[in-house]
């Protein structure tokens, strides 16, 4: 007799991306010209539908000093609230001119990073709810042992934000503010500023997803 068994594996543990993350993930920023097609911080092309926006900010440590070796990735729905790929079960086709994903590293001098993207549409939440427009964002850096997941919401979506099930699930109402990007129009460009504070006063909310 042999007992039935089923094996479940432990997830491979995370480790820091380290200070030289650019070599592998954004080699041009390390002055390495190796790939023909490089990933980057522009998610839009002429064919992309939707309101163009620039998302920018800095990431600060516990002393308020900007991280200059940080790497950020974003993932978001298209202008109609649809994600590319079969895991989006809404039954709508996603904008073929929009990949939804981008990767940026901080400037080695100033710590500023930015993305050129579009404002995402509303995405369905669980149990019939509607999520406010938002962008998933993850932070990797030297000294960060496991990627820090957060979300970017928009300060000009007051009504939608008030009904967002994820924002509303955060018990500390004051901390919800750390997830709201601030709009500042600049020379006709719509810019949202989203600073991330890893530690300290006004520490950004990070999610266990």
């Amino acid at each position: 007799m042999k007992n039935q068994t089923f094996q479940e594996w432990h997830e491979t543990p995370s480790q820091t991306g380290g200070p030289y993350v650019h070599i592998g993930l954004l080699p041009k920023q390390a002055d390495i010209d190796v790939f023909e097609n490089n990933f980057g911080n522009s998610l839009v092309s002429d064919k992309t539908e939707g309101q163009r926006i620039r998302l920018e900010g800095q990431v600060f440590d516990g002393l308020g000093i900007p991280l200059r070796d940080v790497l950020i990735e974003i993932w978001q729905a298209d202008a109609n609230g649809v994600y590319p790929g079969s895991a989006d079960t809404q039954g709508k086709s996603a904008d073929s001119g929009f990949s939804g994903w981008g990767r940026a590293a901080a400037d080695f001098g100033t710590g500023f990073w930015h993305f050129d993207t579009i404002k995402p549409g509303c995405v369905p939440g669980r149990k019939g709810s509607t999520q406010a427009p938002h962008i998933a964002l993850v932070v990797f850096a030297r000294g960060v042992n496991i990627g820090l997941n957060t979300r970017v919401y928009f300060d000009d979506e007051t009504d939608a934000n008030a009904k967002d099930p994820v924002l509303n699930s955060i018990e500390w109402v004051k901390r919800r503010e750390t997830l709201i990007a601030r709009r500042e129009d600049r020379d006709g460009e719509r810019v949202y500023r989203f600073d991330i504070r890893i530690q300290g006063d006004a520490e950004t909310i990070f999610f266990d997803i």
Partner: protein
Amino acid sequence: MYKASLGAYAQRNTDDHPPAYTPGYKTSVLRSPKNALISIAQTLTEVTSPHFREDQLGPKDNDLILNSAKDGAPIGERIIIHGYVHDQFGRPVKNALLEVWQAKASGRYRHPNDQYIGTLDPNFGGCGRMLTDENGFYVFRTIRPGPYPWRNRINEWRPAHIHFSVIADGWAQRLISQLYFEGDTLIDSCPILKTVPSDEQRRALIALEDKTNFIEADSRCYRFDIHLRGRRATYFENDLT
């Protein structure tokens, strides 16, 4: 008849990973949140993910021996690293983007911020990428990286390692980590590897020598498998529960 469908990713077992605050690795002290992570129920945002196509990659992207060679082969030990990417339930993860980066044989990185005195090899860039196949299998060829000193304590040395990044089927699976080599005597004292809380999990980051797959008169081989989070089955209702 009711059928099973894919639900949310099983919740992450936080004990499998380093905590954010690990004072032995000093840089983490000011770069770790003090507040607890807020757990959220997954939505479409967390179960979807970017996907990549073969035509976005070049033919030499997973050959680090050739992809930056200028006027000859890079210096160092030629190795092949191969393995499978599976989810926690053993299902193969197909078409995952695996990206790798590493130091040269001398221990120095090709990076403007690395000032180590180790030799810069003009024929080695140290980056590569590939997609897993239908079985979750991947392979790349490279030069074995060297250990190198770093500022943590004064005389601190990293074991030889290769950084890797995986983008798979769901945003909740996103993972960056490091691969080490069996038999490296620096492994036991590495403050970064020590951030991983259990011996079993630390061993999951150590690639094993795969003598069977050495290529005669050419390269040695290491085997390294990766496990990502998997989606739960959901029954009797069409929701991400």
